[in-house]
């Protein structure tokens, strides 16, 4: 028995050796060729029917990946450690070469930006569908860990800056942000008990709630809950609500208005939200005073930041605006989150959000406006004070 065991060990050893030899043969894409993927991608896809690729190379890059080359490099640096291809698990090209981090990031960004099928995206890069699937998910997982600092509730200094911008641009003192929500549509398998995901418009969808600052940067995000849930419920399910309700958020110093009324910190939201001491909704338009109408105008302009941010998000990352085919509902929230992170990275990096990319219509077109009747007396007082200010 003993010699037999020994031979087994030897066999294993030989296998390992063979494996190592085989692995060492796998060619790694030379570092000098890191930009080759872009040249070949551009050459291959610039004249594709349906695309209107700008002739300028930098603009062309943004057209496909939504980010500038500089921001792209930054994103690569964030996820390099997680995506770098190492034998034996490294992903390989059709040619048998290990994929560079740059090409993996490009594949993932293209998949998110275009919302095209994995097969189409794979074809445009010369890789298979399964590679696109793996690369995109690895990228999402990596970003989820490495890019969190791009989406956080602002610290004291930052919130002061935001409030000052809301005041100067929209005439809303002590305003910290604007809130809105949207539906991310999907199809579900017929065999699944999918009624819970069926929303009021009979689509299957998942909700995304976002609070944005004056630059349309997401400062708070909630996603993963079914699309049939009203926005007011969604808000109540959020950590943001709990924090505000318990006085742990939007608890900065109240300021005195010109009339001497105290105005605390708050965010603005549409008719779908309740009027709360820290969430201000507009006046109903029936028989309102001039001051209230004027307040509604300011409120609307500020609230549009959130509307435009969601339009920009769904337009830039078209995977969110196209109807996703049977997504894994555990993974879909991560996909949505990464798109929000990318949206913020673009702003943080100083890239301009391309307004041409945003959805032409409302981000939630096809859905009727929601209306929440709830009025908190403290919220009403604050709104009246703001209207008077």
């Amino acid at each position: 028995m003993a010699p037999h065991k020994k031979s087994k060990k030897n066999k294993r050893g030989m296998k390992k050796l063979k494996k190592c030899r085989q692995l060492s043969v796998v060619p790694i894409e030379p570092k000098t060729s890191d930009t080759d993927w872009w040249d070949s991608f551009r050459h291959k896809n610039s004249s594709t029917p349906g695309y209107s690729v700008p002739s300028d190379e930098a603009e062309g890059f943004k057209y496909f990946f939504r980010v500038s080359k500089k921001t792209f490099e930054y994103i690569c640096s964030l996820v390099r450690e997680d995506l770098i291809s190492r034998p034996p698990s490294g992903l390989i090209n059709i040619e048998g070469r290990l994929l560079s981090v740059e090409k993996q990031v490009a594949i993932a960004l293209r998949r998110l930006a275009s919302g095209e099928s994995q097969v189409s995206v794979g074809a445009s890069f010369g890789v298979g569908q399964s590679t696109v699937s793996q690369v995109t998910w690895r990228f999402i997982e990596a970003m989820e860990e490495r890019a969190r600092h791009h989406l956080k509730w602002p610290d004291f200094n930052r919130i002061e800056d935001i409030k000052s911008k809301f005041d100067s641009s929209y005439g809303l003192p002590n305003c910290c942000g604007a809130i809105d929500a949207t539906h991310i549509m999907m199809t579900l398998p017929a065999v699944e008990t999918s009624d819970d995901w069926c929303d009021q418009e009979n689509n299957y969808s998942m909700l995304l709630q976002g609070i944005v600052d004056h630059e349309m940067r997401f400062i708070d995000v909630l996603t993963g809950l079914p699309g049939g849930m009203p926005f007011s419920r969604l808000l109540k399910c959020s950590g943001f609500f709990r924090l505000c309700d318990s006085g742990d958020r939007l608890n900065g110093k109240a300021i005195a208005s010109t009339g001497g009324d105290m105005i605390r910190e708050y965010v603005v939201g549409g008719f779908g939200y309740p009027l709360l001491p820290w969430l201000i909704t507009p006046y109903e338009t029936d028989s309102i005073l001039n001051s209230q109408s004027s307040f509604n105008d300011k409120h609307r302009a500020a609230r549009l930041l959130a509307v435009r941010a969601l339009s920009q998000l769904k337009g830039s990352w078209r995977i969110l605006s196209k109807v996703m085919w049977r997504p894994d509902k555990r993974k879909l929230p991560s996909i949505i989150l990464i798109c929000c992170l990318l949206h913020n990275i673009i702003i943080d990096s100083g890239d301009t959000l391309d307004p041409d990319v945003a959805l032409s219509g409302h981000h939630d077109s096809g859905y009727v406006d929601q209306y929440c009747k709830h009025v908190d007396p403290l919220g009403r007082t604050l709104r009246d004070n703001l209207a008077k200010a």
Partner: protein
Amino acid sequence: MLCSAPAQKSGLNWLDRLRFNKGIPTGDDLDLDSFLANHPNPTSSDSSHSISEPTRPSKIRTLSSEISAADARPRLSSVLADLLNMGGRLSSGKKCPRKQTNPKFFVASSLSNSNAGIVDCAQKDDNVPATNSFSNDTAKLQEERVDCCDVEEEKENDGNELRGFSKSEVTVIDTSCPGWKVEKFVLRKNNVWKVRERKGKSKSFTKKKNKGTLGFVNHNSAGVKKEPKFVEYQFGSNKEESL
């Protein structure tokens, strides 16, 4: 054993004869994929293109209403029911043969509503071969079946309070929560929504308030259309709310 009874007089076995009668290709070189692809059914028509084709909500609405019922894929089901015993019940005292002598259509809706959850489980099992022909994601299907069982167990534990509620496992990402990702249950009964933490998997935050039911109950007026332009929701509190 029960299936080997028919004699092979014509050179074709019973399965080939059945396939031949139904217009399904026979022989070793079956091209069932192309048959299923060409066979009209409501769910497979855009399986490979839906991601790249923007679909209008109204279109989806129609589609979803067609397929959400328990008897989805009727045509495909009938083909499969012809081939397999889909749970037909024989009234005689004889031992039930594994294959149907006279294949019958499986009507899930004929079962009582109280067994709806169990029916769902059964349907998933029965539909595994069919579903696999549309999606190769077998792992996902297995997960779904596990989910289904979990729901049943939880329903028993929850008692009467949650009777009539449907339950969905959800992964919630909330950047205001530590760790961001929280596994939750969403319970829904018409316009009444409840969100609960999933024990063991949740990451605790605001422990004082968050234990147990969050109780986001939207009573009666929720979702009621009062004006043509708005859908009106009541945010107001009630006894079940822990806020």
